[in-house]
């Protein structure tokens, strides 16, 4: 006994297993009266239990101690699990409990029950249900695994009892089990008796050990009971019958049964419920919420192991990130790994020390931050400390985090004023928009603003506040750029407001007769850099044609069709001139973030221009063939959004991971300053970054892994802040669990970025194949996991959590940067879409990959209440041609544009009502405007709502009539990704392909 007790102290140190204990007592099996439940089995397998009867009789009180040894048994028995598992089925249920960590036995009831006898069968069930359970308890939340599998097993008298006997048996073998592995023997009465004598003396220490946990327990107050196991089993995998042989369409193949993400992006819920103190999924999404425990397991998980981080995601009203000021005590961080204090740190030594959750170093609590602990080990002031209760906080940074005083928000415009810019009306729209945004630029009254315009020469503007009109200075020496004026090119907006307004008013007029078609882009960029490099800030480039003069001159590429399809094809998609990368590097160094707006209808080499945005954390806006009448609205909204959204300046981001894990690569628009420090001169809510993780050690010894994203930035109001997001994820030993906890959205996001990066170094075909191969590998592994005990035949099986993965994979292959061949999309379009997709947050990306399609004509005619939400009234349709009815009116929305598709047989009334007089005209020339009737108003309201739902981009409204080629194909048909178009595969064929490849060498 004494030795057993010595084992206990270990138990509190381990976070998860205790979980099993408390619910065991508190949550009796369904259908069994709670109190006596524990004792019912006593009457069942009489022989072993009887002796224990009397001492155990006092109800729950004694029951509780019993379970504790059973729990403690688990950690004790961890090392030697496999032998225990294979033991004779006669082994008591308790034996099966020990096997929590047993090698992942496939979790299907009845799939693997070797023994025919009743009770043992359920015991094995319990035993092999357990493999899930231990994963759930991985984290601190204790309640979960307590429900031994038996509880959830299918109801039925035999089941209940026997499963219970399994549980009841738990305690007894645990005692003999301690010294050795004899658990497997049928429980002799002897040890049990000893156990019944034991309680008074033995158990107190355990129960005493238990209270050490509550600290953790309290951390998860809202943790709810898990869903029943039966359900879990049912959902464990899905299968699709793909029994037909390709080529012969059997009736069994039903495309409509294929999974489709018609509800949009669904964030896995269970994870956030399990760890309510994790940061919200809008900030950090792991590709799987179960981290593999070993490298070998990680390598079997063929999907990416990583996360998508959107540090500044917009929070809905009421959920803003709390701001924490530590004042003079400074920010509490771990001495060794520099982790910020977060809800998962543990306070010990009556509040004088805290243990870092990432490197488990014991740190001192500074005097100012000290607080007493209450009886449960919780800090008394917990409720007043958001950093200890919330996964996301903003810390106010003290002087040590500043290299210089916080800079004012700076906006600098580099505007192309050549012939095409004025002709297309871009200049006018841009000037108007900038003027209208002057009031809303963040950071009043410190905001700085400046302008340079250029064609074949550079024009600087003196905006000194004492002037009444701006002064223009022309520099025509492009080889040796100099700044004509030391100050006043970049001015304080609130002081020079009138001059800036005068300038913007006169800008379109000044150049309206400009016939210059040259573009001295490179020199202008360099000049802007020279003006800005003192302060940094945001540089907005409005470029209208191919840079043709001075440094950074670009030449026409991609007009040689012979290059396509060869190994040199990728070179077209990367910057040709090193000038751009060099400039981007210099700009990042001086905290200049660049956003590129490109307007040309001709080739402008976005691949090169976009490099500027890519390495400075900016983004690319592309308006091919800009016409102010068509694209004006879009530019107006997007430019306004860019100027007025909350932006974080001169920021750096670092992602810290728990011991044994490190970030191996980053994907997105940024510059790496050191191996794991992302430099982001200007970052805002519409930017997301993907990170891939790798295991550093062959075996993770911890039960959980922590992630902490820290973004150090200057807010527009002039405060230096650190935004910290913390998340925890359990470490698992079971591949099945990893699949169960997978997050399709994050996986697709990482895949899309990988694929786009792949196109920069190889052919499009290769990039598409890579995606396909990755999905195939993952599905094959999953199949292997389950095919042993199931005769799956020719069914394609996939985890419930990944049911949309194949479709999104197809969507990635058909997305603008990757789809088709050279003829299907212009080079610029591809590159622009690539740069955009590299920065998109998960939700937005999924919408772009699988856009929504609604039928609206019926809804428009119905006189319904108007205030209902888009999602409630309209049903999303699969993106296939079958969804389109020629009598209907459809809206296609991918977040970047809205396409209104008018069926050929649509009632003319609707068309007339919507389009007014010119309803019969060619729709490419018609813009949708509100008409004086209910239907039109209703539709406009709907469109407005769609736009408001996601303000990051302004979806432009395009109209197309059925059969109007080639517009229809280009706008809509090509985007019906489930259909077979040209050389690309449809959804059905894609699934068949996947299936065939999965089965090959399966």
């Amino acid at each position, binding site marked *: 006994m004494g030795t057993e007790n010595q084992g206990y102290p270990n138990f509190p140190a381990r976070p998860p297993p205790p979980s099993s204990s408390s619910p065991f007592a508190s949550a009796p099996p369904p259908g069994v009266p709670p109190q006596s439940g524990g004792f019912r089995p006593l009457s069942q397998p009489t022989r072993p239990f009887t002796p224990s009867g009397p001492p155990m009789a006092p109800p729950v009180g004694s029951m509780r101690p019993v379970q504790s040894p059973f729990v403690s048994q688990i950690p004790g028995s961890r090392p030697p699990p496999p032998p225990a598992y294979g033991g004779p089925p006669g082994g008591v249920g308790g034996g099966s409990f020990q096997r929590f960590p047993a090698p992942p036995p496939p979790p299907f009831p009845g799939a693997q029950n070797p023994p025919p006898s009743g009770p043992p069968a359920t015991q094995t069930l319990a035993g092999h249900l357990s493999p899930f359970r231990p994963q759930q308890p991985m984290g601190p939340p204790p309640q979960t695994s307590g429900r031994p599998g038996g509880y959830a097993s299918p109801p039925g008298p035999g089941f209940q009892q026997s499963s219970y006997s399994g549980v009841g048996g738990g305690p007894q073998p645990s005692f003999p089990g301690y010294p050795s592995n004899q658990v497997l023997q049928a429980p002799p009465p002897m040890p049990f008796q000893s156990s019944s004598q034991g309680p008074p003396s033995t158990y107190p220490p355990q129960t005493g050990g238990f209270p050490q946990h509550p600290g953790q327990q309290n951390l998860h107050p809202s943790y709810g009971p898990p869903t029943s196991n039966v359900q879990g089993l049912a959902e464990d995998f899905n299968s699709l019958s793909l029994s037909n042989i390709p080529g012969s369409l059997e009736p069994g193949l039903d495309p409509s049964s294929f999974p489709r993400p018609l509800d949009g992006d669904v964030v896995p819920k269970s994870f956030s419920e399990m760890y309510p103190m994790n940061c919200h999924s809008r900030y950090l999404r792991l590709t799987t919420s179960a981290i593999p425990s070993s490298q070998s397991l990680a390598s079997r998980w063929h999907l990416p192991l990583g996360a998508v981080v959107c540090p500044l995601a917009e929070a809905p009203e009421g959920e803003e990130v709390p701001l924490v*000021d530590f*004042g*003079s005590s400074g920010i509490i961080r771990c001495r060794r790994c520099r982790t910020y204090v977060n809800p998962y740190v543990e306070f010990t030594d009556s509040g004088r020390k805290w243990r870092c959750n990432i490197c488990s170093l014991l740190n001192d609590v500074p005097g100012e931050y000290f607080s007493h602990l209450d009886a449960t080990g919780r800090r008394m002031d917990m409720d007043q400390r958001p950093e200890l209760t919330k996964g996301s906080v903003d810390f*106010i*940074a*003290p*002087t040590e985090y*500043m290299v*210089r*005083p*916080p800079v*004012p928000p700076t906006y600098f415009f580099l505007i192309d004023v050549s012939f095409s810019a004025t002709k297309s009306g871009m200049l006018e729209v841009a000037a108007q928009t900038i003027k209208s945004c002057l009031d809303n630029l963040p950071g009043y*009254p*410190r905001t700085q603003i400046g302008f340079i315009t250029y064609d074949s020469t550079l024009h600087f503007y003196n905006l000194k506040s004492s002037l009444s009109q701006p002064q223009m200075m022309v520099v025509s020496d492009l080889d040796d750029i100099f700044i004509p004026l030391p*100050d006043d090119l970049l001015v*304080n907006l*609130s*002081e020079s407001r009138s001059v800036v307004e005068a300038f913007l008013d006169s800008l379109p007029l000044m150049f309206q007769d400009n016939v210059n078609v040259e573009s001295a882009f490179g020199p202008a960029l360099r000049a802007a850099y020279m003006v800005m490099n*003192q*302060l940094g800030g945001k540089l907005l480039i409005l470029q209208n044609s191919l840079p043709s003069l001075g440094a950074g001159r670009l030449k026409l590429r991609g007009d040689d069709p012979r290059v396509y399809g060869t190994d040199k094809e990728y070179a077209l998609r990367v910057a040709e001139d090193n000038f751009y990368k060099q400039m981007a590097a210099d700009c990042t160094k001086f905290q200049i973030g660049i956003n590129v707006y490109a307007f040309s209808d001709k080739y402008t080499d976005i691949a090169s221009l976009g490099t500027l945005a890519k390495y400075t954390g900016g983004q690319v806006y592309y308006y091919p063939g800009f016409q102010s009448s068509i694209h004006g609205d879009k530019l107006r909204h997007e430019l306004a959004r860019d100027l007025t959204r909350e932006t974080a300046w001169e920021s750096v981001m670092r992602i810290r991971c728990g011991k044994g894990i490190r970030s191996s690569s980053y994907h997105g628009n940024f510059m790496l300053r050191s191996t794991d420090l992302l430099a982001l001169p200007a970052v805002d809510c519409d930017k997301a970054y993907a990170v891939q993780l790798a295991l550093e050690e062959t075996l993770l010894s911890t039960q959980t892994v922590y992630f902490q994203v820290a973004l150090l930035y200057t807010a527009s109001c*002039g*405060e*230096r802040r650190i935004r910290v997001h913390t998340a925890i994820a359990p470490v698992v030993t079971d591949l099945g669990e990893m699949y169960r906890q997978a997050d399709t959205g994050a996986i697709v996001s990482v895949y899309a970025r990988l694929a786009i990066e792949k196109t920069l170094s190889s052919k499009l075909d290769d990039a598409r194949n890579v995606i396909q191969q990755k999905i195939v590998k993952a599905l094959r592994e999953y199949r292997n996991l389950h095919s042993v005990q199931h005769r799956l035949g020719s069914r394609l099986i996939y985890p419930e959590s990944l049911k949309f993965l194949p479709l999104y994979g197809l969507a990635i292959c058909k997305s603008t940067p990757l789809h088709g061949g050279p003829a299907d999309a212009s080079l610029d379009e591809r590159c622009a879409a690539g740069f955009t997709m590299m920065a998109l947050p998960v939700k937005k990306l999924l919408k772009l990959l699988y856009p929504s399609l609604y039928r609206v004509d019926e809804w428009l005619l119905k006189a319904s209440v108007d205030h209902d939400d888009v999602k409630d009234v309209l049903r999303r349709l699969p993106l296939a041609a079958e969804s389109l009815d020629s009598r209907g009116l459809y809206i296609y929305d991918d977040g970047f544009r809205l396409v209104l598709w008018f069926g050929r047989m649509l009632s003319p009334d609707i068309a007339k009502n919507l389009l007014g007089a010119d309803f019969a005209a060619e729709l490419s020339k018609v813009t949708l405007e509100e008409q004086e009737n209910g239907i039109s108003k209703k539709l406009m309201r709907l469109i407005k709502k769609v736009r408001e739902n996601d303000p990051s981009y302004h979806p432009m409204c395009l109209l197309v009539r059925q059969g109007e080629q080639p517009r229809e194909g280009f706008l809509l048909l090509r985007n019906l990704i489930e259909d077979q178009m040209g050389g690309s595969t449809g959804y059905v064929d894609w699934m068949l392909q996947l299936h065939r490849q999965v089965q090959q060498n399966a």
Partner: protein
Amino acid sequence: MVKMTLIARVTDGLPLAEGLDDGRDLPDSDMYKQQVKALFKNLSRGHNEASRMSVETGPYIFHYIIEGRVCYLTMCDRSYPKKLAFQYLEDLKNEFERVNGPNIETAARPYAFIKFDTFIQKTKKLYQDTRTQRNIAKLNDELYEVHQIMTRNVQEVLGVGEKLDQVCEMSSRLTSESRVYADKAKDLNRQALIRKWAPVAIVLGVVFLLFWVKNKLW
């Protein structure tokens, strides 16, 4: 010419505001900023004497005034008239107290009044050129007297603190080492005692033991 301007709280050296794009065209502005920080630290430790002081550093000179527990400091060329520099600081002080007066003590985060930089910027421009009518008038203003203001060298000023620190450190080292010495001496003493008496004690012990054994056996 005014090169840079900083405003800090004297009590704890917390920077409150700083001129915008200070240090432009200044090759080693970082070094001077370090010096300013060291100076502020010195001030917060109470090493200051005068509320107005000029401190020479390389080709430049720091001028500062301390008023209402706030230090206004500027760095100028040596050739820049002292009178103008102090009037510039005086201007800043008046405006700063007017705008932020009540909040100075409660400010917790660094650069809490960074918005003041626009005023600094504006005022700086007024003082940039010494030959404007306005500035000449100020120079000739006999009422504003700056001759008494002490001028010292930066090494000297920073050195005072450093030397004091050194002395402090040395004395503390001395105390701790003497304590160690005392402990060691005691220890040695004890050892000597043991060495001296141990053989005797052992011999006696053996003898007694023998006696006892003998008595027992017999």
